[in-house]
């Protein structure tokens, strides 16, 4: 590509500019402008200290950026490493409870439910804890349910049923349903059955402990769910609808034409239907929180459910490897959020710092 000759260019520029007459007036004007007192015009000491030293300025900007990014990202990263347990442990009242069988934990709407595996491989105890139960008040609505698995001696199913019925009655409750069956397991007949007991909710815990004495307990599962919020909400809706119904009734009393009466009647019918629907839900909830159900499964001894086959070493190692891989991947995804945020923040700060640096540099001179 052809370039203009440097000598020619130099000559042309001088030819174009050197003849421009420059008078002394400009110098005098500048000197006159520079004469006013200077004390107020001096830049602030801190600013001038920074302006005169680019390295210091850059260092200050870098330190500030690192501090800001650290302040933003560290809490985020820490937040990511916090187990979600703490969040769920303070959960709100739940709509429905779920039971958990087996080892480990599972956060649910009702809080945390734990299951503990016994050394023999059988699940022998499961218990659930509703967070709201810690703050139960006299008006709290708690829905409790449970399941107890018992093993009784051969031929002991009938007496056990009788004893369970007596326990329920003594606690002010009743038997909701019961069922006994006989099966052939190859080594003789055996009986098994299920009985569901219903007792007032405050007696539930006592009933669970009493039932466990009837036979050999192999599993206990209980759940308690605080449905106070749902209960209060239903009541509030019903109250509001009832108020609306009263207003429509007042309108109805003043209505003179057939059309008005029919229109108001249609609204009243709709309101009444809705009120009854909600009232039904409230009654059900009321009943569920007034009474607790405990289902007891009974099996005669000598009949066992085959325990799960223990894993061999290779299988266990494989499962651990898969679990570790998945856990690592989950961690990577979790960490990518704060990391991306940190990178973006740093980029924005660098951009701002660059702009500020340029602006300061221009202003400084």
């Amino acid at each position, binding site marked *: 590509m052809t370039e203009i000759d440097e000598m020619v260019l130099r000559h042309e520029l001088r030819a174009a500019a*050197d003849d421009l007459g420059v008078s002394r007036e400009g110098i005098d004007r500048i000197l006159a402008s520079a004469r006013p007192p*200077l004390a107020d015009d001096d830049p602030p000491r801190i600013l001038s200290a920074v302006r005169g030293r680019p390295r210091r300025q850059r260092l200050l900007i870098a330190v500030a950026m690192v501090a800001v990014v650290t302040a933003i990202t560290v809490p985020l990263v820490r937040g990511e490493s916090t187990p979600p347990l703490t969040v769920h442990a303070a959960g709100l009242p739940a709509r429905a409870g779920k039971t958990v069988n087996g080892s480990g934990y599972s956060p649910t709407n009702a809080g945390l439910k734990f299951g503990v595996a016994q050394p023999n491989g059988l699940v022998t105890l499961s218990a659930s804890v509703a967070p709201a139960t810690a703050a139960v008040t006299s008006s709290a609505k708690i829905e409790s349910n449970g399941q107890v698995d018992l093993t009784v001696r051969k031929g002991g199913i009938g007496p056990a049923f009788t004893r369970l019925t007596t326990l329920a009655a003594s606690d002010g409750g009743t038997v909701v349903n019961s069922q006994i069956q006989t099966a052939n397991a190859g080594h003789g007949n055996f009986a098994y059955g299920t009985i569901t007991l219903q007792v007032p909710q405050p007696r539930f815990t006592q009933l669970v402990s009493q039932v466990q004495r009837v036979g050999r307990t192999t599993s206990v599962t209980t759940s308690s769910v605080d449905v106070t919020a749902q209960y209060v909400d239903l009541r509030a809706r019903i109250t509001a609808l009832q108020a609306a119904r009263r207003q429509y009734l007042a309108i109805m009393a003043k209505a003179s034409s057939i059309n008005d009466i029919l229109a108001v009647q249609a609204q009243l019918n709709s309101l009444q239907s809705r009120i009854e629907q909600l009232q039904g839900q409230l009654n059900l909830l009321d009943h569920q929180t007034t009474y607790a159900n405990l289902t007891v499964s009974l099996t005669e001894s000598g009949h066992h459910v085959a325990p799960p086959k223990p894993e061999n070493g290779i299988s266990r190692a494989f499962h651990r490897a898969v679990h570790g891989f998945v856990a690592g991947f989950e961690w990577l995804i979790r960490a990518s959020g704060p990391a991306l945020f940190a990178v973006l923040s740093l980029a924005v700060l660098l951009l701002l710092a660059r702009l500020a640096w340029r602006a300061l540099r221009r202003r400084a001179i």
Partner: protein
Amino acid sequence: MRTTDDSTSDLRVLEEWLTDSYASSVRTAYLILGNRSDAEDAVQDAYLRAWRFRDALNDRASMKPWLYRVVVNSCYSRLRREIPHRDLRAHHDELATLSDRDDAIGRVTTAFDVHRALADLAPHLRVVVVLRYYADLSERDIAKAIGHPVGTVKSRLSEARRQLARHAALRPTTSVRTPDAREEER
């Protein structure tokens, strides 16, 4: 706190700067801005600013590029804020102020052509060309003056020379007229 004596002394420093460099600064700004009054205003702003922040100059040896840097920044500032709203090609008043010497018509024509070519260069190219080939700053000093690496200065100079070689206003000059030829013509 500055005393009156200090201020007087500083004013003498400013006067020395102005005596040494004011004319060349105005002409440099004139080539960059293409306009005498803008050039004088830009240089006035630049010197007052430079003098106000004279403490920022640590190395007296860097005085020349530093002053040019202030002038260039002042020119850039005017190019950004004020001059884009005016017609850069309106050099007629300036051309009329050129001294009337021998070959006045030729010189006026040359000045007009150079200004046209410079006006068509992007400001960042125009500045390096003027600093290098009019103000005679080294590439290193230009780098200090514009706050960019020497490599950037070189590439800008090269690009500017290429563009000027293609420019219609200077093409006859580059192909036919050389300094020697012009001397001979005179």
